[in-house]
């Protein structure tokens, strides 16, 4: 059962990447200006060379052929060359990925620590005033655009990871709070409380096992949110990561670079969601 689930996720991942890659290749192919070859304007080139360049371009007119050619190159590690930065896309991604990975991971950690601390304290304390305060705080953060939070982090000299944490926090908090609230209202937990079990025991023996699969799914989704938040944070904080690269590529209309980044990000988010799903399945299987 678990093996089938993993195989299904793997198949979905491959199919999504192939389909997403095809969509991206279509975008690149249809984008205005792809047929223009700057080197063809070089006065040193002979007419035969220019003709050869044009013939090479003409081969790319068919979207399917263009995609298959790009796919073949990608399998061999050649993701093409960035139009704006004139560097191989693979080396750009290789250089920028570690920073984004560190920042997003740290942001996710901080955000989840805050979400769990606040949601658990709200569920345990059960004070309407405290609940309202936490809800208002999360609600206010939810109403501020991610880019403004990034700007404020620059103003207050706060690390980018904290800005990412603040962007994800309100989105995750609402779900986590509702999940824990529901779990604490379950009859067997009310009865455990009535029997005098300690809060710690109730939490680890009765609440966490019930909400863990949903919280894992939420954690998977929050990876996608964090990666999305990396764009404004890196762009506005001047951090040389994947998000900043995507923003620069968008401004320069560098579609080969942008589409490769999008496919990479899709793989990361799909892997995170699939992992969360599989771990949740294992958890449920162990409890059954």
């Amino acid at each position: 059962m678990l093996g089938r689930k993993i195989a299904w996720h793997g198949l979905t991942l491959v199919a999504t990447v192939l389909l997403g890659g095809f969509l991206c290749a279509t975008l690149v192919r249809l984008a205005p200006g792809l047929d223009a070859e700057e080197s063809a304007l070089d006065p040193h080139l002979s007419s035969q060379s220019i003709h050869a360049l044009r013939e090479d371009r003409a081969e790319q007119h068919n979207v399917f052929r263009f995609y298959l050619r790009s796919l073949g190159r990608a399998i061999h590690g050649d993701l093409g060359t960035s139009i704006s930065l004139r560097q191989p896309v693979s080396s750009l991604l290789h250089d920028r990925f570690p920073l984004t990975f560190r920042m997003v991971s740290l942001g996710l950690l901080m955000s989840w620590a805050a979400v769990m601390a606040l949601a658990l304290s709200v569920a345990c304390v059960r004070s309407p005033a405290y609940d309202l305060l936490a809800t208002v705080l999360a609600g206010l953060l939810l109403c501020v655009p991610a880019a403004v939070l990034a700007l404020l982090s620059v103003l207050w000299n706060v690390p980018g990871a904290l800005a990412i944490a603040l962007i994800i926090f309100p989105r995750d908090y609402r779900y986590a709070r509702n999940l824990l609230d529901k779990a604490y209202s379950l009859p067997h937990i009310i009865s455990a409380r009535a029997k005098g079990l300690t809060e710690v025991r109730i939490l680890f023996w009765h609440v966490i096992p019930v909400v863990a699969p949903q919280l894992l799914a939420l954690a998977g989704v929050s990876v996608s949110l964090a990666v999305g938040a990396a764009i404004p944070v890196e762009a506005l904080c001047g951090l040389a990561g994947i998000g900043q690269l995507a923003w620069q590529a968008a401004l320069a209309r560098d579609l080969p670079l942008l589409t490769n980044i999008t496919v990479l990000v899709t793989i990361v988010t799909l892997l995170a969601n699939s992992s969360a799903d599989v771990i949740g399945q294992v958890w449920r299987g162990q409890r059954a």
Partner: protein
Amino acid sequence: MSFWRKFACAVLMLVFAVSLAATWLAPAGYAKQDRDATGAPPSREHWLGTDELGRDRFARLLYGTRISLLLAPAAALVSTLLAAVIGGLAGYLGGAWARTAMAVTDLFLSLPWLFLLITVRAMLPLNVSPTFSVLVTFLLLGLLGWTAAARVLCASASSLRNSDFVKQSRAAGIHGTRLFWIHVLPNLKPVLYAQFWISIPAFILSEANLGILGLGVAEPLPSWGSLLKELEGIVSLGAEPWKLLPLALLVVVVTSFQLVLSKSHEVAA
């Protein structure tokens, strides 16, 4: 209707009415430059001061609010209609249709929203007329924002397809589009309303994010995004507090939209 919902509705109506009255409240317009008073603090002539190009900040705020409050619901309408057609039909038809539609939906959902937006936005020319840019920005939001709603609508339509009254209608000889339009779609209304209301603040915030990143509405047209871009040059929050007014208004409007969403809407969502 609770007090807070009434209050939020009143705030939204007030903000919308004031933004509609921009022509009278700020007759100078959003693009007129006062070259003798560039980057000026608030005064009797310019209630919120002027920007670096000498344009009246109050006028730009009113016109920007008007644009966002008119076009975000329009984009929400586009995305809700797309979700109703794609998700609703997929759920109603079921089988291979539903699987294919949901596979496409999953593909879109697996792409982070901002990445998808900037990728598609980058495909389009950046140096377009301001009116075209504002339409493109909100149209993109509408065309790309249907996926989550489609998933909800597919599930709702799927449960309706197997409900007793739809089975009875089928048995009575009602089939195909007639059954969908007369019996299924009207029952999806609560979900559609909820998705529509949820989309508006999400689109307002997305436009603001795109605007701050320089990928939104083109100058000189104002929008919340372009107004908030001014915060890039701010040195401290206390030094020029009037520059924070667009942010405060945005927070008030988005909060009001969140409050308008009643418990029933949330359940339907």
